[in-house]
């Protein structure tokens, strides 16, 4: 490698993913608001024939926000920050740069295929693994290319040690690779049944309780390795960089990393409490879920302590606001999850609205907030421009925070009410309420959730506008900012 002083970081791949993050964010969350409104006002199910029903749109929502919005955000951050902490530019490795662009094309094809097939109602019927086998094959190819690129970058690094964020990206890569393969073991029906069914259909290789176990081993670890591990990679890079403060304790970050890796894999059983899964497995799921508080809070507290002595930045810099609130929400949901995993609590919480409530304080408050902050931080370096509007960013922060709070508080109340009503019995042991009684009681909370979701979505549009304006009309910067992202 030549030592060329004019050498610069090449952000072309990161830039591509930045835009898909925004597009999938808008699509996925618009569908989210629509299905939230449908739960409150069922007439909204009939807007577009079969394509507009809740059952069609719900998997579309989850898949687009997870594999569209979140994954794009992760990839944008990876291709932006991994070269930086390794001190190699993607531009120095033309082959890898080309491969990364090919990976992006594969991603676009897979994501488009996902939206179309789920929209048409073609599904493998496993939660978060609804895509049919042809798409699964494409996703494996995509993932393998990511691995090649990651390790090629690491091989060419100037920095000897790997920064903690990279440990988390590697864990994300390995964890998803292993879990995805095992969970998606499926038999294409056409080839093994003597020509029955459509070519794209398949059935799972596992059956009954085994299928459920493998499914939630994946399902929960999708939360671990897509919603947690890579987002921790983001915060370990972007919060220190934006604030100019090194991680409070690097040792704590290492300890939390290994803690998280050991504990997370065993917690998935908490999705199957009170089911036909062996009792000891359920207990193990509960126990490991509670232990999980430690490594999760280890990272989150480490991030908050990174701001020690610099808390004035919280009032001055909206990006710091987003990130500090993100780590706070991370703490909230990693306390809430273990509570729900306690068997007696789960007996009330399972199947109720408390679960989507828990999901969304995590994904909206932690995942989405981190992705917004990361993209805005990057935008000043990638486009070499000042952030278009600080006040818009501030307004987005407050509107979205209000939205998240409305979302999860309404679902807490709705969920617990629902759980209590389902099990309420009179003095003779007869159930006191029928299902429709709960629906009537929950209606106002569903409406509040839809309003909260709408506020969050408005924030997403503000973000998209701000990012677009930054890229096209922000004041040009002479030099790359060192820490704090400049904004007008």
């Amino acid at each position, binding site marked *: *490698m030549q*030592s060329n*002083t004019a*050498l*610069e*970081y090449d952000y072309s791949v990161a830039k591509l993913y930045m835009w898909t993050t925004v597009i999938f964010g808008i699509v996925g969350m618009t569908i989210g608001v629509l299905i939230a409104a449908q739960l409150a006002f069922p007439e909204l199910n009939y807007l577009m024939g079969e394509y507009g029903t809740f059952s069609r749109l719900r998997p579309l929502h989850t898949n687009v926000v997870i594999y569209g919005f979140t994954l794009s955000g992760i990839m944008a951050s990876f291709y932006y920050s991994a070269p*930086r*902490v390794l*001190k190699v*530019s993607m531009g120095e490795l033309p082959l890898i740069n080309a491969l990364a662009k090919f990976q992006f094309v594969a991603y676009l094809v897979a994501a488009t295929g996902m939206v179309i097939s789920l929209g048409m109602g073609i599904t493998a019927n496993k939660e978060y693994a609804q895509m049919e086998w042809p798409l699964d094959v494409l996703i494996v190819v995509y993932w393998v290319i990511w691995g090649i690129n990651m390790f090629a970058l690491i091989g060419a*690094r*100037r*920095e*000897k*040690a790997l*920064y*903690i*964020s990279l440990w988390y990206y590697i864990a994300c890569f390995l964890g998803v690779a292993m879990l995805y393969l095992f969970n998606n073991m499926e038999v294409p029906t056409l080839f093994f049944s003597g020509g029955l069914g459509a070519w794209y259909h398949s059935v799972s290789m596992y059956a009954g309780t085994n299928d459920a176990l493998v499914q939630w081993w994946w399902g929960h670890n999708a939360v671990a390795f897509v919603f947690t591990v890579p987002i921790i990679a983001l915060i*370990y*890079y972007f919060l*220190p*960089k934006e604030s*100019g403060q*090194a*991680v409070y*304790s*690097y*040792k704590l970050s*290492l*300890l939390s990393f*290994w*803690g998280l890796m*050991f504990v997370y894999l065993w917690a998935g059983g908490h999705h199957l409490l009170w089911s036909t899964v062996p009792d*000891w497995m359920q207990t193990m799921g509960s126990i490991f879920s509670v232990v999980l508080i430690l490594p999760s809070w280890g990272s989150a507290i480490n991030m908050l302590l990174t701001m020690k002595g610099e808390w004035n930045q919280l009032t001055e810099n909206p990006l710091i606001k987003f990130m500090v609130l993100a780590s706070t929400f991370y703490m909230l949901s990693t306390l809430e999850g273990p509570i729900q995993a306690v068997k007696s609590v789960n007996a009330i919480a399972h199947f109720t609205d408390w679960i989507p409530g828990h999901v969304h304080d995590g994904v909206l408050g932690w995942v989405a907030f981190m992705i917004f902050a990361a993209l805005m931080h990057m935008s000043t370096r990638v486009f070499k421009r000042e952030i278009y509007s600080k006040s818009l960013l501030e307004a987005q922060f407050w509107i979205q925070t209000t939205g998240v709070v409305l979302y999860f508080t309404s679902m807490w109340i709705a969920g617990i009410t629902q759980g209590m009503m389902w099990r309420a019995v009179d003095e003779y042991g007869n159930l006191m309420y029928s299902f429709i009684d709960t629906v009537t009681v929950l209606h106002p909370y569903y409406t509040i959730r839809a309003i909260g979701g709408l506020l969050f979505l408005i924030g997403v549009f503000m973000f998209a506008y701000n990012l677009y304006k930054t890229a096209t009309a922000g004041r040009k910067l002479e030099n*790359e900012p060192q*820490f704090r992202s400049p904004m007008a």
Partner: protein
Amino acid sequence: MSLTEMQGYAFFFFTIFLVVILYGYILHLYKSEKDGVRDYEKYGKMALDDELTDKPIEENPKETNEKKEK
């Protein structure tokens, strides 16, 4: 001893074992820092000084050799 009892003992000792590993790792981190083997905290700087022109916190030896060869 029944199988369930054995599972119970196995579980207990395995937990103890994991706790020992965990505390052992913490001790290892602090000890290697105290003995000057490795200064972990300096790695935090990797996120801050991440320009291509910044001096690496710890030079990759492979990279340095390649430069010498040139």
